C-alpha cells in the first residue's frame, strides 16, 4: 500500500516540477523523515538503499540522513545517495546529515562528490546548527 | 483494486484446462500445460530392448523424443497406425528433470475446463499400481473423462528404460581356438 502511494506522490511532483510552480504541489507534509543509512552500502546493498530512500524522495519536510553507522561504502552506494540528494535539491527540498562516516566522507572526496553532497565539515556543521 | 490481481489465481485453483483424447471407448484427459504439441504419425526409429509400448524415437525439431503407444501401455487392442493417428507430445517432470515424450492416441477431442471440485477420485480397483497414474475422474458433458497423471504414467516406465542387451544369442567368448 505504502509503495503505491509513493508512486502517486512521485507523479504529482513530476508535474509540479515541469510546471515550475511549487504551488502546484497538492501534498503537504510537515513531518520530516529520518533515514538511517545502513552499515553496508556497497553494490550489493545499493538496491535496498535506493528503495529505502525512494520513500523519502517526496517528503516535503527536511529529510535527515543518518550516516553514523555507515561502515563500508563503494561507488554504487554513493551514487544512489548522490542521486537522491541531487534530486531533492532540484525540487528545492533539504537534506541534512546526522552523524559522521569517515569512510563515506573519504569516498565522496575521492569520487569528487563532496560538493554535491555538501557533507558537513565539523566547522560547517556548527554553522548549520546555528542557522 | 486488489481483487483484480487475485482473481486469476483463484480461478487457477478452482479449474484448469484439460486436453481430452480418445483411446478405444474411453476419453482421457491431460493437463493442457503439459502438452507441447500435437502432431501426425510418422515412422519411428526402434530402440533396442525398449519396453514393447515404447515404439521408438522421433525427431521433434531437433530433439530425440521417445514415443509411447498408450493403447499398448493400457493393454488395449493394438490399432493400426494410419495418417490420422495422432501423437500428443507432453512434458514429463521426473527426478531426472524435464523430459519430452510422445504418446500415440486414437484421436484428440477437445480442450475443456475442469472444475477441480468436481474431480472424483478413481475407485480402488484392487491393484494400486494399475490406477496409480489416474488422477481422478470427471464428468464433462455427460461423458466420463479419465484424468491422467502423466508424470506417474511415464515414471513407472523410466526404470525399465535402460536397455539391457543381454537377452540375445550373440557371444564373444569362445573366440580362442
Amino acid at each position: 500500500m505504502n509503495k503505491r502511494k509513493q508512486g502517486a506522490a512521485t507523479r504529482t511532483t513530476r508535474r509540479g516540477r515541469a510546471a515550475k510552480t511549487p504551488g502546484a504541489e497538492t501534498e503537504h507534509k510537515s513531518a520530516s523523515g529520518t533515514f538511517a543509512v545502513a552499515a553496508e552500502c556497497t553494490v550489493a546493498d545499493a538496491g535496498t538503499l535506493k528503495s529505502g530512500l525512494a520513500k523519502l524522495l517526496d517528503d516535503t519536510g527536511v529529510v535527515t540522513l543518518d550516516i553514523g553507522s555507515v561502515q563500508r561504502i563503494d561507488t554504487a552506494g554513493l551514487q544512489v545517495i548522490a542521486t537522491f540528494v541531487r534530486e531533492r535539491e532540484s525540487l528545492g527540498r533539504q537534506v541534512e546529515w546526522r552523524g559522521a562516516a569517515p569512510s563515506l566522507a573519504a569516498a565522496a572526496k575521492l569520487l569528487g562528490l563532496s560538493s554535491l553532497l555538501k557533507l558537513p565539515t565539523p566547522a560547517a556543521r556548527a554553522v548549520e546548527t546555528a542557522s | 483494486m486488489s481483487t483484480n490481481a487475485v482473481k486469476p489465481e483463484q480461478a487457477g485453483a478452482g479449474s484448469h484446462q484439460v486436453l481430452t483424447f480418445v483411446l478405444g471407448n474411453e476419453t482421457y484427459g491431460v493437463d493442457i500445460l503439459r502438452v507441447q504439441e500435437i502432431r501426425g504419425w510418422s515412422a519411428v526409429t526402434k530402440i533396442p530392448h525398449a519396453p514393447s509400448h515404447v515404439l521408438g524415437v522421433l525427431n521433434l525439431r531437433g530433439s530425440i523424443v521417445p514415443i509411447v503407444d498408450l493403447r499398448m501401455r493400457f493393454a488395449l487392442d493394438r490399432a493400426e497406425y494410419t495418417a490420422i493417428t495422432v501423437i500428443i507430445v507432453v512434458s514429463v517432470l521426473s527426478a531426472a528433470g524435464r523430459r519430452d515424450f510422445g504418446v500415440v492416441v486414437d484421436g484428440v477431442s477437445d480442450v475443456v475446463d475442469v472444475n477441480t471440485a468436481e474431480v472424483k477420485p478413481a475407485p480402488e480397483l484392487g491393484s494400486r499400481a494399475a490406477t496409480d497414474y489416474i488422477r481422478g475422474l470427471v464428468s464433462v458433458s455427460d461423458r466420463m473423462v479419465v484424468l491422467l497423471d502423466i508424470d506417474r504414467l511415464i515414471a513407472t516406465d523410466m526404470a525399465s528404460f535402460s536397455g539391457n542387451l543381454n537377452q540375445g544369442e550373440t557371444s564373444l567368448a569362445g573366440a580362442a581356438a
Partner: protein
Amino acid sequence: MTIDLTQFHDAFFEESFEALDSMEAALLKLDIGAPEPELINTIFRVAHSIKGGSATFGFSDIASFTHSCETLLDELRSGGMQVSLDISDLLLKTVDVMRAMLRSTQSKQPLDMQRVSDIQFDVELMIAQKNAAGPGNAPAKPAAVAPVAVAPPPAPARAPEPVSVAATPMVAAVAKHWEISFRPYRELFARGNDPLRMMRELAELGELKVEVDTSALPAFAALDAQSCYLAWKLELAGDVTEDAIKQVFEWAEGDCDLDLRLVGAETTAAPVVAAATASAPAEVAASNIVADAILSGNTSPLGIPSPPLGVPSLTAQSLAARSPAAEVPKHEPSAPAAAAAAPTAAAPTLTAVPSAKQDASIGAVGDSGSIRVSVEKIDELMNTVGELVITQAMLSQLGAVLEGTNAEKLRAGLAQLERNTRELQESVMRVRMLPISFVFSRFPRMVRDIAQRLGKQIDLKLTGEQTELDKTVLEKIGDPLVHLVRNSIDHGIEMPDVRIAAGKGAAGTVHLDACHRGGNIAVEVSDDGGGLDKDRILAKAKQRGLVGQNDVLTDEQIHDLIFLPGFSTAEKTTDLSGRGVGMDVVRRNVKELGGKIELRSERGKGSRFIITLPLTLAIVDGQSVAVGSETYIIPLISIVESMRLKETSISRLSGHNEVFSFRGDYLPIIRLHELFGVEPRARALHEGLVVIAEGDGRRVGLFVDDLLGQQQVVIKSLEANYGHVEGVSGATILGDGSVALILDVAGIIHAASMRATERPATERSAKEPPAGAREAPVGAAA
C-alpha cells in the same frame, strides 16, 4: 531489492584462475640469476589484481594473503630483493594457496587455513628478513615489514607503498602531470569494479584531483542502483608511469573508456640520501588530497584485516635478531651500486623500463578484441546450426527429385545453401575450439615438482601447443594426460646415474606434442626413458591368468595388456618398470571422448603414448549401415575395415560362437540384428557384410545387411528424454528427418561379452575367473 553479488563472482573467479595460470607460467620462466623485469611485472600484476578484486567482493582472507604476496613481489620488482630459488619456490606455493582459496571461496567449501597462514608467514618472514638485513632500513620500517601482522590500524592499506617508495629513492623522480578521462560503462559495477578503489590507488600514486561528471545520472526513480552513471576527469601529478595508471584500471578494461594524456613532465633530482626513505612515506601521504580521510576509515575495502589464524607478530627487531648475519652481505652489493648511480645516469634506466612495460600493456589492451561468451550460448548456436544442417539436407533431397522449369535454379540455390551451411557450421565449431596450450600449460609446474621430489632431471618439451580442439574434449583430456606424464616421469625416466650408466644424458626428456592428423587430433606423450619390459609384462599377465600360458602375443598385444584393469592396479606397488597405475582409467577416459590410445615402446629407448581424439564431441564421422529396416551409424574412428565374408573363412565354436579369420586372428562376429532385436534382410553371413570394428582394444566383426555411406552426423542425446541404451552412444537425425542410432562399439562388445559370461562352459570362460573373462580376450589369439 538486494542483488546477489555472486553473479559478479563468476567473472572474477574465472579471470583470477586464468591470471594465476599466467603467474605460474611466468614464475616457471623466471631465470633465477637474471629475471626479466617484464615477467616479474606480470607476476606482480596478477597478485595485485586478485587482491583488488577480492577486496571489492569482501573476500578478506584472499585479500590479506595476496596483499602479503604483493608486498614481496613489489620488493622483487623494485630490485629491493633478488629472485632466489627459495623465493620462486615460495611464490609457486602462494599460487597454489591463492588457487585453493579462490576455489574454496567459489565452492563455499572450507579450506585448510593453517596452510594459508603458514605460507603467509613464510612470505612475511621473507620480506622481514630482507628489511631486517637491509642496511640502515630496519629501524625505519617496522610498519612496512609485515603490514598484516604489526601495522597499527591507521596504516594497513598503505603499508606496501612506502616500501616501494623507499626502495627506489636513488632513481631520479620524474614529476609528470597526467590527465585521465575515465568514463565507465553502465555495467562496470556488475563486473566487480569499483571506481572508488581505483581512485584510492591513484591517490596513492601521486597527487590526484578529481572532477566528477554527473550529467548521465538519471532521475532517482529511473536509477538502476547497480549501473554506473558517473564519469570522471582526473589529474594526477607525480612520478607516475603510464603503466602504473593502466594497472589501476586493469580490471576495468573493456568496461570503460579510458583516456590517458601526459600534459607535462619535469625531471627533478632524486633524493639521494638514504635518510630520505624514512620521510618519503609521510610526504607521499601528505600529497594525497584525501589520504587522511582514507586512513582514518579503518574499514575501507582495501583495509586488510588481520590474518585469519594467529600469525605471530613479526617485528623487524625480532627478525633481525633471528636472521643469520650472513644475510647482510648478501644484500649489500645492490645498495652501494644503486647509491653510486648519479641522478643523470639513472634517468635513462627509468625510461628504458617503462617502454618495456608499455609494450606489455599494449598487448593487454589488444586482448580486449575478444569477448567472453558463455558456453551455453555457443551450444545453443551449435544446436540451431545442427537443425539448419538437417533442414538443408531435407531440402536437398527434395530438390533432387523435383522437376520443372525452376528445378534447376532451385538446385543451384540449394547447392549454395549447402555450402553456406557447412561454412556456418565450421565457423561455429571453431568458436568452441581452444588451443591445447590450455592443458599443456599446467605441465611445466607439475614436471618440475615431480622431478624435484623424485630426484630426477627432466626436460619437458612442448610442441604443437597451438593445435585447437573442442573445449569439451579439452576439459576431459587434461586428467589422462597428467596421468601419462606422471607415469613417464615416475616409471619411464630413469634416475640420473642409471641414465649415465646407460650412455644417456643425465636429464630425461618428456615430450608432449599435439597435431592434426586426418580429421582427428593426435596428442603424444613420449619419453626417452627405460621403455616397457615386455617379458615381465607378459609373465605378469600369464601369472594373473589374463593370457593363456602358451599364448604368443605380438608386441602390440603385450603393450595393450597394461590398459587392462586387472593388470594395472595389481602392479602399482611393484618394481615393474612398466607404467601400471590406472592405465585402464586413462583408456576409459579417452574412449569416453570417442578417441583411442596406442602405445609404442622400445626397451631402453623409451615409450610413446599416442592418443587420437575427435576434433569435437558434437559431430562424428560415421558409416551408415543398414540392418533390416533400421539405419545405424558406426563412428569411423572405430572401424578398421569392412568386408564380405566367404563361407570358408567362418568357423563356429561350440555350435554357437561364430568367428572369422582376419589378418591371422580369429575375431568374433556380433550379429547386430540379434543384439538389437531387428528383423534382418540377410541371415547367412556371406550374404551380408562384416564391419571390423575396434573397441576397448578388442576387435570384432559386426554383421550388418549393407553399408550405406559415410557422412558427418550431429550427435544428439538419447538420454535427454529417454535413457542410456547399452551399445548406443547417441542418435542423429538423417537427411530425411528420421532418427538413426549411433553405435558405441565398446558398449556392444561389452554387452556381447557380458552375455558370453552368462553362458556356461565355453572353453575360455571355463579357464578364467569370471572377472577376467569380461575383459580378457586381447586379440583372442588362436
